[in-house]
Each structure stands twice: as structure tokens, then as C-alpha cells.
């Protein structure tokens, strides 16, 4: 009987209901993802303000299974409009991709990108690419940060399936960044809506909205605490803090 209740409780439809009603929600829901599929974190690229981005990624199928991946990296602008898509095969185990304004055909802006792995072999596992992005301003050292939020999954027919990060139907959630921001010249908060519908959110007392999978960079100055309030279960930013001539990048 207990097993049956547990099964019902964790059934995808019941999980959907639990999440809507904010009743013991599953914040990162991967239960509906089939084996052999590849999940990607949402990564930030930026080329504006003399930034360059480097993506250091691992061929995960090669690492764990000794099988070569075919890898697809899809780039979007901040409004989730697809800008370009790259396909790789016969990769090294560890790979670097530099994203600058030339790579982006002259675009000096920011947005998101996702990486999906494919293999011909039937591998009974689900992999998540949560690799590392480095951000370099004015040709100084790249400051690295790891991926922090699984967002999209590529299905076998190469369509991008979504719905990993849930949101509540009724209730706003706080996401207070556990850092004191006051002593920096200023900071930038990169946010991506990881859900598949529009969200409204507050950064402290200011209201914003983001359409599905869209992204925004917000500048803050002389605030001690940053509280992000939204209906999204995990609304986790990347932080850029600036002091004198130096930059620090980390996930929130």
C-alpha cells in the first residue's frame, strides 16, 4: 500500500499538481526525462562592454562511456531568439569555445546557450552538461563559474523539450543571495527565466518580467542584500561584482 501511495505521489501528473499548488514541490524535476537524453544547464554568453566568454566543456559520453558524442550548441539572444547553432563530432575529451563579437557576427550583447550530446549507442543514463564558462573583460584573466541550473533537454527527434524548473501557480518565493553586495563599486545580476512561461519577479522592490527562457542583466549599486522574489522555484543568478579594476564572477 505504501509503495502504491509513493508511486502515485511521484507520478509526473501528481508532481505537476504538487508543483502548481506549491505542496512539497520538486524544484528540479527530471522524472519525465528518458534515458539516453542529454540535459543542458542554461549558460550565459556576453560580448558587450568588452567581454569575451569562453566555454570549457567535456565530451561526457566519451568521459563516462568511452563513446564519442555528437554535440550541438545552440545560441540564443536575450529574447530567446535563436542566433546560431553549431554541430561538432569527433571532439576532444575537453574542449574550449571562445565566444566574442566576431563569433557572434558583430553582436555586442548577451544571451544564453545550451549544449546537447547525442550518441548512436543506447546508453541507459541521463547526462547533464553543467560545465564551465569563463568571462574576460578587457583581455584580463577569464573568471570561471560552473553551470548551476538544468534548463533544457534535447529529445531524440532533436526538438528541445522543456519543463525542468517548475513554478508555483499562486505563491511567490524568495531567493535571497547569500552575499553582502555593499562594498563593491557595483554588481550585475544575470537572470534567466528557466520556466516555459512568462514570469514576473522583484529584485528587492523593483518589478520586472521575463518571457520564457529570456534573460536579463540588472545593475545594482550600494545595495547590501539582493532578494529575488518570483513564482519560479529556483531563480538562481550569476553575479558579476566589480571593485576598482577587478571583476569577480560566481553563481548566486
Amino acid at each position, binding site marked *: 500500500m505504501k509503495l502504491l501511495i509513493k508511486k502515485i505521489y511521484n507520478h509526473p501528473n501528481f508532481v505537476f499538481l504538487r508543483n502548481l499548488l506549491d505542496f512539497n514541490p520538486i*524544484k528540479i524535476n*527530471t522524472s519525465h*526525462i528518458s*534515458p539516453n537524453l542529454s*540535459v543542458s544547464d542554461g549558460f550565459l554568453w556576453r560580448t558587450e562592454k568588452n567581454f569575451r566568454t569562453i566555454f*570549457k566543456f*567535456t565530451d*561526457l559520453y566519451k*568521459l*563516462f562511456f568511452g563513446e564519442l558524442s555528437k554535440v550541438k550548441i545552440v545560441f540564443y539572444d536575450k529574447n530567446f531568439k535563436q542566433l546560431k547553432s553549431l554541430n561538432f563530432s569527433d571532439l*576532444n*575529451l*575537453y574542449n574550449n569555445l571562445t565566444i566574442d563579437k566576431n563569433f557572434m557576427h558583430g553582436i555586442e550583447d548577451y544571451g544564453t546557450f545550451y549544449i546537447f550530446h547525442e550518441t548512436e549507442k543506447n546508453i*541507459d*543514463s*541521463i*547526462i*547533464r*552538461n*553543467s*560545465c*564551465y564558462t*569563463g568571462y574576460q573583460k578587457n583581455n*584580463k*584573466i*577569464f*573568471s*570561471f*563559474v*560552473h553551470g*548551476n541550473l*538544468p534548463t533544457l533537454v534535447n529529445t531524440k527527434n532533436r526538438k528541445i523539450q522543456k519543463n525542468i524548473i517548475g513554478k508555483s501557480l499562486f505563491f511567490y*518565493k*524568495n*531567493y*535571497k*543571495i*547569500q*552575499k*553582502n553586495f555593499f562594498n563593491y563599486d557595483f554588481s550585475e545580476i544575470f537572470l534567466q527565466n528557466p520556466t516555459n512561461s512568462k514570469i514576473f519577479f522583484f529584485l528587492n522592490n523593483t518589478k520586472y518580467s521575463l518571457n520564457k527562457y529570456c534573460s536579463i542583466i540588472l545593475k545594482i549599486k550600494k545595495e*547590501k*542584500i539582493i532578494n529575488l522574489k518570483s513564482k519560479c522555484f*529556483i531563480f*538562481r543568478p550569476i553575479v558579476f*561584482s566589480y*571593485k*576598482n*579594476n*577587478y*571583476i*569577480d*564572477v*560566481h*553563481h*548566486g
Partner: protein
Amino acid sequence: MNFFFCLDDTNINSKLTIPKFQNEQNLKQSILLFSLHSQNNKWILNKTECDSDCDFFYIKDKDHIHNTIYFLAQENDAHNIIKNNVISNINKLTDTNPAFRANLEIENEMGGFSSYQSDYPFDMIKISNGILSPLSILLTENADINKIYFRNIFFKPTAHNGNYYIINKKQKKILEQGIIETNKTNIIHIKNDFINEENYFFTSNISGIPIYFSQKNNHISFEHTHPPHQYILSEDKYSLVKNLKKNFNEIIN
């Protein structure tokens, strides 16, 4: 339950900022900060006297004994942390999803700085198996300084030794090996020549968090690598990682 730590590197200042709030809600104002350090194979518990305000505790290197660890607790609970001279899990104040983290910021003498949101979960302190981490991902080949801060917290107050290895996987060769200790931030300088995709940092019997540091023209990058099982969402994650480490264990044996 999570623990927090400073770096204890004489060439770098570190500042640990521990929040008095979870991501989603505030903690009770009666929460205090406590510390543990080992002395003569015994854990020594102290209430931490440091700068604080209504939101954070602030700890600087100069404020503490090297390799001290910190945790949050109610005053009447804190003494329960040591039972039979080992660390116990005494509260859920920092059991959150995403993880409860402190900001660990480092700064060099020129003002170059970097930080990451850090924690050391209770579940890790009883683990004695090693870690595997590629060198080329977070270090910078042409940096002035590259090093790994390898932090271990062990539930017993002992400082026992283990080995770290820099291994070339393709050649199945140990390029360098050295001693690391439990309950310490071990500092391992990495030669720039070692930074390529064939080389790994590996420990076989001491677990911990490898935090990668690169400095060039006083600008710093400072970030930890994921443990390999984080790349697998399915239930076979630990068996896959065990398999992966098997090759490295064979090289060192």
C-alpha cells in the same frame, strides 16, 4: 548541516561572509556562529567572536586559528556537535535546496579579488574515498600562478596523511605526487606545463573540495570543480564514477 572555512594561505587574504538567512527565509536571530578546530586529537568547540550585523557573520584570516571550521547553531545545541570526539549532525538550519552557502572571497595585496559561494556538507565529512578532477578546465595555462586549494574536513579530529597525484591519463603515468592532510586546506602549486586535457588531479583516500586558483597580472579566477557524479542525473551515477576512478586507482597502484 553545512560547515564553512577560510583558506589559510599566507599569500592571500580570505574573508568568509556567513549569512544569517536561508535563500527562502530568515533564520532566528538567536542563531550563533561556532567554530571547531582540532588540537591534540581532540575537537575544540568555541563560540565565535567576530564582526557581525543583522544579516551576516564576517570572518577574516587574522581572526582565527588555521584550519578552523564554522557552523551555525542555537546556543543550547552547539555543545552536542561533538559526541565521542567525532562531529555529529545537530541541526537542519543549513539544509536547503539550493545549498546554504557562505561567500568565500580572496584578495591579493594589489586588490585583485575573486569569490565563490562555498559550503562543506556534513555528508562529505565521513567520506574517505578520493576525488578526481581535470586540470585543464579551471586553470589558466599562461597564468603567473596556478594552484589548487584542496580542503578536507574529516569527522574525526585527526590529521592523517594521504597522497595527491597529478596523473597523465593517456600515458598512464604519475607526473607528480605529494602529501595532503585531513582537516586542512592543502595548497598545491600546479606547473603551467601540467595544464592540458590529459592531466588530472587525483586523491585516492582523502575526499575534499578542489578549488582552482589562477592569477595573472593580479587578476584572479577562483572556482571549484563539480564532482563527476553531478554530470549524471540517472541512478547509475555512482557506479559510473566508480568505474571512471578505477582506471586512476590502477595507475597509482
